């Protein structure tokens, strides 16, 4: 187990290397440069800027120096926000996205499991149908529809919660909900299916025959087996929530990392995109590792395999 873990971590290094190289190449090969502006700047100044940002000369040389800086943990300066380092941008915005994402993650996980179990428990009864219809709706509606709908309902009609912004607790509710709803819906359907399968098995009948309380049967005995697909989904889920927060962050004006990633591409802000891609990749690798570890804990057969 330990050895496997170490190998996985070591394998991450070439992966990250490839990610940085690819991002850099793609950004540099895309037409249009970071200093193309609506108002033209003198050619000499543009050259000076490219030199200051070490974006002149052959692309391979540029990459070489960039990689050297990245290896030292220096993600360089943004070409758009010219007084900001990429490290500064990431360290100010990532925690906010991570916090929001974390809440949405647990909301999706908790809510999805609960609703899925409930639907399975009430199999083929009206509440099952209603829940599953709502879940289908939740999957089908993208966050740029759900977000404004929540704002209309909770901010404009009811006046309970602010329309957006960041800093108070009230401001967390709607974005966290908007971000988690599609995943919660997906999870609910997933848990329902795997729960239905589990509930038909003999050991559940045994548990019930033992006279265990129904919630114990559901949440302890059945969920343990039914949760395996949930665990394997939670890695991609965490990644999706983290990288998919852009739309929600824009709708609710949350100063997270999402807009920097997308606008970075549009602005040809090569180092911002490079830095964020690197951080995202690291997180993805970490999530996958955690999922593998969890899986091993839940299912002993995988550990030995």
């Amino acid at each position: 187990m330990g050895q496997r873990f170490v190998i996985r971590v070591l394998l991450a290094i070439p992966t990250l290397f490839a990610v940085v190289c690819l991002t850099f190449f793609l950004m540099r090969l895309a037409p249009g440069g970071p200093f193309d502006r609506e108002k033209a700047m003198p050619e000499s100044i543009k050259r000076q800027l490219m030199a200051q940002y070490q974006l002149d000369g052959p692309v391979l040389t540029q990459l070489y120096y960039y990689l050297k800086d990245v290896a030292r943990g220096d993600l360089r300066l943004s070409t758009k926000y010219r007084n900001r380092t990429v490290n500064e941008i990431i360290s100010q915005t990532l925690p906010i996205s991570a916090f929001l994402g974390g809440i949405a993650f647990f909301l999706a996980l908790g809510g999805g499991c609960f609703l899925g179990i409930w639907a399975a428990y009430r199999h083929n009864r009206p509440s099952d149908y209603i829940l599953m219809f709502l879940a289908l709706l939740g999957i089908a509606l993208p966050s740029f529809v759900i977000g404004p709908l929540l704002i209309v309902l909770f901010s404009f009609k009811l006046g309970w919660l602010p329309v957006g912004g960041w800093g108070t607790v009230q401001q967390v509710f709607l974005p966290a909900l908007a971000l988690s709803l599609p995943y919660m819906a997906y999870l609910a359907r997933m848990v329902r299916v795997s729960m239905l399968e589990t509930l038909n098995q003999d050991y559940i009948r045994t548990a019930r025959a033992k006279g265990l309380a129904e919630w114990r049967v559901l949440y302890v005995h059945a969920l343990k087996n039914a949760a395996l697909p949930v665990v394997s989904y939670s890695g991609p889920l965490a990644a999706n929530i983290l990288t998919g927060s852009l739309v929600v962050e824009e709708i609710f004006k949350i100063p997270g990392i999402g807009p920097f990633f997308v606008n970075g591409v549009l602005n040809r802000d090569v180092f911002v995109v490079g830095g964020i891609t690197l951080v995202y990749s690291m997180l993805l690798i970490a999530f996958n590792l955690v999922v593998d570890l969890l899986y091993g804990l839940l299912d002993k057969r995988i550990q030995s395999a």
Partner: protein
Amino acid sequence: MPQISRNALLRFFLYFIFLGFFLSSCSPSKPRADLVFINGIEPESLDPAIITGQPEGRIVMALFEGLTSRDGYGRVGPGMAERWEISPDGLTYRFYLRNNARWSNGDSVTAQDFAQSWERVLNPVTTSDYAEILYYLENAEAYHDGKMKDFNRVGVKALDSQTLEVRLHDPTPFFLDLCAFVTTYPVHFPTLRRYGLDWIKPGKLVSNGAYRLTDWRINDRIRLEKNPYYWRVDQVRLNTVEALPINQATTAFNFYQTGVADLVLDKGSIPPLLLGELRKRPDCHIAPILATYFYRFNVTRPPFNNPLVRKAIALSIDKKFIVERITRAGEPVTGSFTPPGLPQYQPPQGLSRDPDLGRKLLAQAGYPNGKNFPAITLLYNKTEQDENIALAFQSMMKKELGIRVELRNQEWKVYLNSLSQLDYDIARSSWVGDYADPNTFLDCFVTERGNNRTGWSFAQYDQLMTQANQENNPDKRAQLLHQAETILVEEQVPIVPIFHFVGIKLYDANRLGGLHLNLIDEYPIREMFRK
């Protein structure tokens, strides 16, 4: 892992989340600023020498002040300079700084501060995008290009700590306007030297304007507080101001509508779908601004190397349709590139719509009814409005001239690249004036200017522009500029002006005062007040 503990774990997480919610919902929120306004996008920088955009400019204008400053009507008046003298030939300016000009740390603002700051702007190492604002100074361009290394030969000199002498190479009637422009603002060198790139961060920045910077969280907010050392601090009525960067128009509108923000200054922050409704509301204020929407031709390629073809197309565009059916904010259609309303200048009429004449000219150029006309493309960057205008243009060309236009939309940076590489036939464009003078528009199309981007070069136009800028008599100068613009929009037509933009502001005039819609589209915060 014992089974019960996993169950407990799940419950723990749920409790944790909800407990967290309710505990911190009691946390006190910060007092609201006297004015909260929506400021388009996150400022790229707050360094006066670096910034180019309006959202940056608004904050920098609140933080810093130049030799002159604009009032709430957009008029130029004294700033750090209390008074000035202009030599009869209009070439030498002597600015006298006021005694009580101070930085926000109490230091005096000196003439040396200005001279040094201007050196910084012109120094190629600073890579200031807007250095050309100072090109009117003697030898400034050569210094900026690196052709001349000695700054002593550039036309700015501190005679003593309160007197600044400026020498221009041509009489520049709008020079006092330029002295109110952000690029010419002084910066505090001790701070700059001490903190390097970080000098503009809160807690470090030392400024000389009505406000000082107390907070700047990326993409969240900028908070300003009255600067007690400002020379007319007694006239500054809002103590605290917050600027919120909001990208999405609907989000911006939500913030305004629920009272989180008091003021929306950008047209881009207003949802286009709501425009029709909003225009009827008393808190919606619309007025023309110094900006023009136009199409440009790549005159280096056939068929647009022929002025007849360019004119034929210009004559066949139904501009009224575009502003009434597509943009719908009350934009005035135009035949001229320069918007009306500039002091001492009346722009030419330009070409009005006349498809019959257009067809005739096209036939003269050898394409009767569009026969044999090569396939041409219209380049635009993809926004909904630009796309709709492009579609309208496409059908107008087909209907009036029998020309087939293909549409090519490109992402912003790619589009800019295509423009400067002259890799297009016709391209959508817009231009925003920087100061209240026709030169800010007409200078673009002088041969080889970076903003020309049409390949158009016309000796007579260049000559008229040079003459105009050497002319000290305002009437004669206006006449020369008028002649030049007539060539641009009526005779040679490398561009087709379509409409002038309007600015749309949202604020309740019963509660917020000191804002007067003006052409230059600048609204100093120091003049605003709550009613």
